[in-house]
């Protein structure tokens, strides 16, 4: 017995050195699924830290409201676990962008510092403008604003972004 143990131990030790894993590409794969709002609603500092936490098994997969049920499903599929509903108190909101009220903005630059993706342009004492195309709707700029001049605006559908709806399932409707 001891001999078997020793031999196997030797082989395993050798293999451990030979087959060491350098980098964990799993984090990248998880990060690719996350919506990159960098909103921190998951309790981590951003999407990447959350991805690292998931990869290490320290965080659950259902903490990301912007990713929604779809995101949870994709994570579940990647990790081979059961999808579950979003956690308590985390509900997805409609996609929105932040808009600065030109009348009240005092140009304090606090929101510029808060924006995780540098989507707000402006200088001290100058009116700030949010670049809508780059805004992720994370709402991180709302609390720092001393004059509450930033509001969230739901993105409306137009002819280009309009989506075909799910065909009504006749059997179920009749039920």
């Amino acid at each position, binding site marked *: 017995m001891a001999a078997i143990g020793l031999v196997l131990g030797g082989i395993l030790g050798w293999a451990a050195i030979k087959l060491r894993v350098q980098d964990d590409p799993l984090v990248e794969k998880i990060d690719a699924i996350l919506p*990159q709002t960098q909103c921190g609603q998951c309790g981590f500092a951003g*999407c990447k830290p959350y991805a690292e936490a998931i990869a290490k098994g320290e965080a659950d997969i259902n903490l990301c409201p912007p990713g929604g049920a*779809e995101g949870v499903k994709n994570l579940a599929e990647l990790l081979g676990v059961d999808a579950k509903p979003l956690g308590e108190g985390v509900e997805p909101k409609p996609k929105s962008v932040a808009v600065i009220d030109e*009348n009240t903005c005092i140009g304090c630059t606090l929101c510029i510092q808060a924006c995780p993706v*540098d989507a707000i342009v402006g200088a001290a004492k100058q009116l700030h403008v949010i670049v809508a195309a*780059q805004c992720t709707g994370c709402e991180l700029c709302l609390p720092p604003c001393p004059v509450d001049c930033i509001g969230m605006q739901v993105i409306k559908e*137009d002819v280009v972004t309009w989506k075909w709806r799910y065909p009504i399932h*006749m*059997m179920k409707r009749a039920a």
Partner: protein
Amino acid sequence: MSRKLYTFNGGVHPDGHKAMSNGTPIRAMTLLPRYIVPLRQHIGTPARPLVAAGDTVLRGQTIGAADGYVSTAVHAPTSGRVVAVEPRAVPHPSGMFDLAVVIESDGADRAIEFQPLDWRNLDPSALRNRVRDMGLAGLGGAVFPSYIKLNPGGQKIHTLILNGAECEPWITCDDRLMRERAPELVRGIEIMRHALGSETVLIGIEDNKPEAIAALRAAAPAGMEVIAVPTRYPGGGGKQLTYSLTGVETPAGGRSTDVGIQVFNVGTAYSLYRAVELGEPMISRVATITGHVAQPGNFEVRVGTPLSDLVAAAGGALAGASGELIGGPMMGFDLRDSDAPVTKAVNCLIVKNPRLFPAKPIELPCIRCGACAQACPADLQPFEMYWYSRAKDFGRAQSYNLFDCIECGCCSYVCPSHIPLVDYFRFSKSEIWEREREKRSADQARVRHEFKVFRLEREKQDKAEKFAKAAEKSRESAASNAVTPADPDAEKKKAILQAALDRAQKTKETVTPKNTENLTSGVQKEIDAIEARRAKVEEKTESHE
């Protein structure tokens, strides 16, 4: 003919109903009091409006300029006054509104001066710019800006195919056009051949249009071959027609130009002739009005004509009409609002009645009978795509090559369980597109976030270095000065912030509604201007999305 024809798989034979509208010549329409010209009539970026409410315009005057590469111009259909540039109902399956120029005609129908072009002695790129400014877009239904398609790029376009198959039931506008205007059409083809430098020109027409085939054969010069293809829907699909005529499959996800072939609709060739040889911009097209109307037929319709007026021109809808269809019954869509105008994409309007278009039967479960797979011209397995689309498993739906689906409707047509398969595919496709948009913006956000983190890190380092230097200095001075004063800079900043806060509080109060009752007209104007500016910013953000 000696040319060997190839047979694509699948396809169906729906009732043609073509005799209803192809017996009478193309009619002209009387001048209408009002035209609505949408600025987005083509695939790509909408045209940039050049006029505002109150401007007067002439027929053929450019009212919207091409904006960006994939875009083309829009022109006034008649002379008159612009009454509004605002969102209006457009022929779109969503029934949504889109920006349009509303023109009230003055009845004179005065035109700008049309300048014919000596295209034979013209540089192809100048010719293409002309085509773009003339507002040409493919009239087969996809309305892709024609000037781009006339650019061979780096590729050799050895074969030019003219699509006159018109495989959709009911529609006869290309049929009538080919019968009546074959010589002009052929001149348009010559221009295309000139721009592309193609050696072979093939004109494919389904064999249920013998008159059109005869007319074109009579008009076609040597080197243009008119080929009758068997009537089988969707034989007029670009990929299907290309395969029928040449045996070449357009690569998935690619264009026919990748294999040296360019396909144009015959209507586009005719419009090209008018744009280049007559100098007349694309302000009209031939459209079919058929179905449950008094006098079905084809009309030369000005772009911008409200569809309700088109129905009226055809003698009006008969009693018992139950709605209208834009396009053919296989790939068209329900018209939500008959105020919507004819655009460059509208080739047919069908007035429905319950006998011609009975209500759809109830959807039953899929039994995987494979009828859809046998009917699919793209050799797909629609029932598998349906199985996963229904469960909203888009990844798997896509793995069955969902994006090779051309939405021809053959699968839905044959399905014994009456499953609206194409609707499921359209649903899945738009969901996937949405996800791709989101993915793109997420990738962008990631890059920007990473850069920000990197920048902050760098700033911190810089600061730390500075601080270290400062600390060294202060240690030197500490000998003389025991107590370090609080950072005067920070104090100052705080004070400034507080002052600004107070100011803002005040201004906020002034713009709250309680003060709006007794505003001077000047202030009111200012507020209006700001509101307008804001609205514009919002609009921009929307169009950016």
